[in-house]
Structure formats: structure tokens, C-alpha cells
């Protein structure tokens, strides 16, 4: 047992280090309430969904019996919505330096994220399509390390949102990303569900919170 402990700890460290690059937790824009805001900031509220929705086989997971950290399980369920001061890259997932913050949201659930004063771009939305990991072994059969591969799909929006003086909440509705079977972006449908979502927003942020509706388009 002790012989296995060090390699397993090494595996955990390797996974942690590699995930730190992927998760960008320090860049998270998610907030719990108005108390998380500084002067001039507002909260962006909306939902993200895929059309067609994810099937049972999505994302493709191939762990080959290796242990999966809780953070990875969360990552597999999440959509990442990248916020930036300017438009993002034409293709692919924005890289560090392209964006200022990331909204992490479970598909279909309301997200609450901080917007800095001024204008922001919803650059693109990405999600994990494939996750694979396996434990490598030394020639004597003992565990040596863990290898991972993560493949994502990114759908470019580049939608501009301008914060106005006095904004507390900007509601963008349900962002429905249409796709084909190869996860190519086929268009954005924005659905105004403010009638239902307003109650959830007020339950979370207070009955007197000021909500402004901004229905975005993909550019």
C-alpha cells in the first residue's frame, strides 16, 4: 500500500498542476450577490444551452480506470463564457491575455457573473467535448503518473455589452447555441425568459434589484 501511495500522490499533484492551467479559477467572474461587486460593476445574468442538448455519450470520457478528481467532474458539466475588453480570436478557445474573465455555468442553469465598468464582449463559449486520462506504469508495473487530454469546442459570439450608469443586473436571457454533430457553431438563438427568471434573480439578489434586459446577437 505504501508503495502505491507516493505514485498516487504524484498523480494527484500532476493532475492538480495541469488542471490549474485549464480551470483558470483566478479568472472566474462568477459572483454570489451584489456584495461581491465594486463601484461601477454590474451582474450579468443568463443561461447557456446547447441545441441539440448533450447526449448520453457527451462528453466522451475515457479514463481507463484512472481516478477522476471532483474538479474534473465539474469541468465536464460546465460551459465557459469568456469575457473580454475587445473581440476574441476568430477561432478556437481564447487564450490567456485574450480575455479578462470566465463565466462558468452549468448548461441550463442561471449564471451570475461580474461585469466591470465600461463595455465588455462576450467573446465565446467553450465546453469539453472529450476527456481522457490514464495511469502510466513503470516497467515493474507500479504506477508512475497520469496523462490527460482535454478537447474543447469553442463557439464565437463577440457580442458587445455596454454597462450604463446605475446598472445592477444585466439580463441576457437563454443563450441557445445551435450546433451540428461535429460541434460546429450553427447560430445563436436568444430566448427572453425574463418573466420566469426575474423571480429567481430577485430571490437571489433582493426584491429591489434593478434589472435591465439586453438581448445579444452573435457577430
Amino acid at each position, binding site marked *: 500500500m505504501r508503495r502505491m501511495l507516493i505514485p498516487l500522490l504524484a498523480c494527484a499533484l500532476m493532475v492538480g498542476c495541469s488542471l490549474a492551467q485549464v480551470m483558470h479559477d483566478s479568472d472566474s467572474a462568477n459572483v454570489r450577490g451584489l456584495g461581491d461587486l465594486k463601484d461601477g460593476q454590474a451582474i450579468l445574468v443568463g443561461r447557456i444551452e446547447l441545441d441539440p442538448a448533450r*447526449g448520453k*455519450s*457527451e462528453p*466522451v470520457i*475515457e479514463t*481507463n480506470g484512472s481516478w477522476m478528481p471532483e474538479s474534473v467532474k465539474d469541468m465536464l458539466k460546465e460551459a465557459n463564457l469568456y469575457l473580454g475588453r475587445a473581440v476574441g480570436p476568430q*477561432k*478556437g478557445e481564447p487564450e490567456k491575455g485574450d480575455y479578462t474573465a470566465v463565466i462558468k455555468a452549468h448548461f441550463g442553469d442561471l449564471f451570475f457573473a461580474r461585469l466591470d465598468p465600461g463595455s465588455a464582449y462576450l467573446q465565446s463559449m467553450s465546453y*469539453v*467535448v*472529450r476527456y*481522457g486520462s*490514464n495511469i502510466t506504469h513503470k516497467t515493474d508495473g507500479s504506477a508512475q503518473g497520469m*496523462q490527460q*487530454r*482535454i*478537447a*474543447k*469546442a*469553442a463557439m464565437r459570439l463577440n457580442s458587445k455589452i455596454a454597462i450604463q450608469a446605475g446598472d445592477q443586473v444585466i439580463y441576457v436571457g437563454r443563450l441557445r447555441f445551435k450546433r*451540428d*454533430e*461535429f*460541434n*460546429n457553431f450553427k447560430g445563436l438563438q436568444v430566448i427572453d425568459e425574463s418573466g420566469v427568471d426575474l423571480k429567481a434573480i430577485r430571490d437571489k439578489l433582493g426584491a429591489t434589484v434593478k434589472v435591465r434586459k439586453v438581448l445579444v446577437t452573435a457577430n
Partner: protein
Amino acid sequence: MKRRLSLIGAIGLLFVYLTGCGGGRTLTKEERAQGSLVFGQIDMDEAPSNFQWLSTRVIPTPKELPYWNFGVHKNRIFLFDGLPKGSYQMDSFGGHSSFLWIFNNQDYSYNFPGQGNGFRIQDQGVYFMGAFKYKAIKGKGFFTADKWDLERVKSPTEKELLIEVIGLLKKMDSPLVPLAEKHLRSLQ
């Protein structure tokens, strides 16, 4: 068609599951005769490895037999004679580095992005995926990983490559030789 991915995520990631489930099933000659010919080329001159395998994934991905492995010939041509109807997405390809043809101790796996790279086979036919060149892109700093692209190139043309492929199919005693020759005539 450009593909770009961190080389750091590619080097050394020859996953056991890929080799394990890549071509879990062998098609009979009769089954291959019902399928399609899919082929293309990757020029790996700028890659740190040679080109030994290419894997495509079935969409939507089933638990059983999610991958089909292409045959790789002459270190550049990939082909599948008899791919069944369906939707597929290019998954990964790879090979190994070598030094003086003796030390083949580094495996390389290059993962396609999780988006795009797909093709549909609705009817039996000949499908040319294109000719590509592996382009190495140096990282900007000491800690910045190198990247790569697959860049579409004009040469060889479909016709030029198909002539080579037909030669390979004949050596393999493939039932799709008549189909390939008929397609070649349509390219004249």
C-alpha cells in the same frame, strides 16, 4: 482546414485506450466491399515524429467500438477501404521519433480539436479528405509550448494521390479497387 493544439498536450500522449480500442473490429472482405474509400495525406517533414497511425471517432460516440483506425502508408498516406456509412470526426494521429533509425523511444500523439474535422458518409463512394502539411509553430517564450497546425496544401491533387492509393489497394487485394478506378476515371 487548420488545426492547432498545444504540442505540450500532444507529446508523449499515446494513450493506451487509443491503441486498445482504435480498431477493435476487423471488417470482412464482404463488409469492406459495402463501405467507402476514404483517403488523404499528411506531410510530416516538419513534425518531431514520423506518421504511423490515424484514428477517427464515430459520431455520436458509442461505448463499443468508438474508433476506427486508418491504415498509414509511405509515412504520409492515410486510407480506409470499407468505412461503413455514418458520421465521423478525426480524433488523433501519431508516430514516433527516431534517431539513426535505432532509438525509437519517444511516442507522439497529436490530438485534433474537439470541434469540426468531421465528415459524413451517406452513400458508398470515394472520399478525399485532402492533402495537409504539418506546420510547427514555435512558442514565444521559454515556458510557452510549441504548437502545430495542419495546413491544407494543393499538391498532391486528389487524382495524383488516388493513383498511388489504387496501387496500395491492389497490393492489399481490396474489394474497392473497381470503385476507386471508376472514381479516378471521373477525375480525368
